[in-house]
């Protein structure tokens, strides 16, 4: 069959401006300000990334157990020796030395219990909030200023930090000092509870803490270490 060739006498139709069928569309969501039905981001304040760190002397009772009380080294240029790096990172060598010289043990970011090892870091960015970093055991909520700790995750991490040897166990003298402090607090609370009944439960809580520390002390009772004897020379007669 011979092919039809365009007649040189017919006018060129040009580009087809009105194709048959409906015009193409693509999804579109208008920005409508306050009426937008979208999950709002958490409303918490900006938080810089922070190294968790532990001081061997900073222990306390947390969740009914003797646990370290971590401090935080903020990764903010200008704070405690942190320097800004080209490309947006921070240089932390001076900061780490600064804290180590003062007895702190900065906890490496990848120190995670086996159940959380897939995370790679104990820090997480909060989606939708600029420059805001929390730890994985801290919870934020859409549209809210609420900021909570998941105790189960936190204690799992903290206990792992101790059991894995990243920080040394609590020293005996620290337990003894805590026991003295809690005993004094308990006595004051008992006094107060006599005139202010609302202090009753506080005094009971403190009594439980004192018991816990006493039990801990009992477990640790050992003979005192033998030191070099101090010789006091008596004047000759």
């Amino acid at each position, binding site marked *: 069959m011979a092919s039809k060739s365009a007649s040189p006498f017919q006018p060129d139709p040009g580009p087809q401006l009105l194709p048959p069928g409906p015009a193409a569309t693509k999804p579109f969501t208008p920005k409508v300000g306050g009426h937008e039905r979208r999950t709002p981001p958490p409303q918490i304040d900006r938080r810089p990334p922070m190294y968790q760190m532990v001081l061997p002397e900073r222990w306390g009772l947390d969740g009914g157990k003797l646990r370290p009380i971590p*401090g935080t080294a*903020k990764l903010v240029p*200008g*704070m*405690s*020796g942190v*320097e800004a790096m080209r490309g947006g990172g921070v240089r932390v060598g001076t900061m780490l030395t600064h804290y180590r010289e003062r*007895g702190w043990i900065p906890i490496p970011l990848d120190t995670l219990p086996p159940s959380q090892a897939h995370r790679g870091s104990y820090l997480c960015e909060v989606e939708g909030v600029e420059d805001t970093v929390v730890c994985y055991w*801290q919870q934020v909520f859409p549209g809210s200023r609420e900021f909570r700790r998941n105790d189960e995750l936190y204690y799992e991490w903290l206990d792992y930090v101790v059991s894995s040897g990243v920080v040394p166990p609590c020293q005996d003298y620290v337990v003894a000092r805590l026991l003295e402090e809690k005993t004094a607090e308990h006595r004051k609370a008992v006094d107060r509870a006599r005139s202010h009944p609302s202090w009753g439960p506080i005094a009971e809580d403190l009594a439980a803490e004192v018991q816990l520390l006493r039990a801990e002390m009992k477990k640790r009772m050992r003979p005192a270490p033998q030191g070099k004897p101090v010789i006091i020379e008596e004047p000759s007669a």
Partner: protein
Amino acid sequence: MTTVTTTTFANQLVSEKHLGVLALLLADRGSLPNHPALIEKTGLEGEGTTTFKGSALGLMGYDLPTGYSETGTVTSTALSDATASLTIARKAKLYNAKGLARLVDSLGVLNSQAMAMDAVATMNSFLLYQVAQLMDNFATIKGSSGADGTAATFLDARTALKIAKVEGPYLSIEPPRLYGDILDDVAFNAGGSIQWNADCQEMLSVAKGLGYEGNHLGVDRYTTTHVLDDSTDVWGGMFGRGAIVYGIASPGKLDLNADQVVLLNRILFDRIRDFANDEQGWGMAIYAGATELLDLCGVSMRCGRS
């Protein structure tokens, strides 16, 4: 009969007119004056480094003499010292506005004067932020996790500083929750037996900076939300001279051009004009840093965050 209503008259009405009321959005706008408990270091320009060393020496009565017999040989005493590195870094922000927006601005904020005032307030707030962020890192802690702060928390911190031989006057930087808890406890349990010299809005108090709450037992107390909130507790701290050193370099040593101004000898204020895009920018930068020097000069205080 056709009555004129706002609907029928709509073509002749403007959609909105500014009320003439301008409120500031909520923010922590506190500031710290040059309090004696803080060590401020200036003159950090032209030294060839961004890192400086702060020192503390065991002199002026630090070591007591040792007793010797008449023929005994005196042994050398080691000169004790401590040091901390202070690093300064650039902190900056920039606002931009198009020419048309500036032209129709009825609030009078899209101009250099308003932006310069913002730059000064920003620097004050930032200096407070820097110091507040260091409050949770003292080795000594007072207050219990998750519990309300009490007058005892405050008194214990003060006593710990006295025992550590820290010179006064002391400065206390507290989250509002801790401050409120202590105030409640003082009012509820201690009655009038604790001295309280509350801020009384005198002119003198103005000089102490925004966030100043008063002087309690010789401690100047400030509140701020710039302190650490660890999702269980909020942290504050009380300290004396030697705990914190902060430094701020003067941009006045830069080779400034006609659009740059130095404010308060601390802030580089820059007006940036982009004619092609009809854009005016106002930038501010400070070159500052803060660090802890002597840990025992401070005590961290905490209380439950709610």
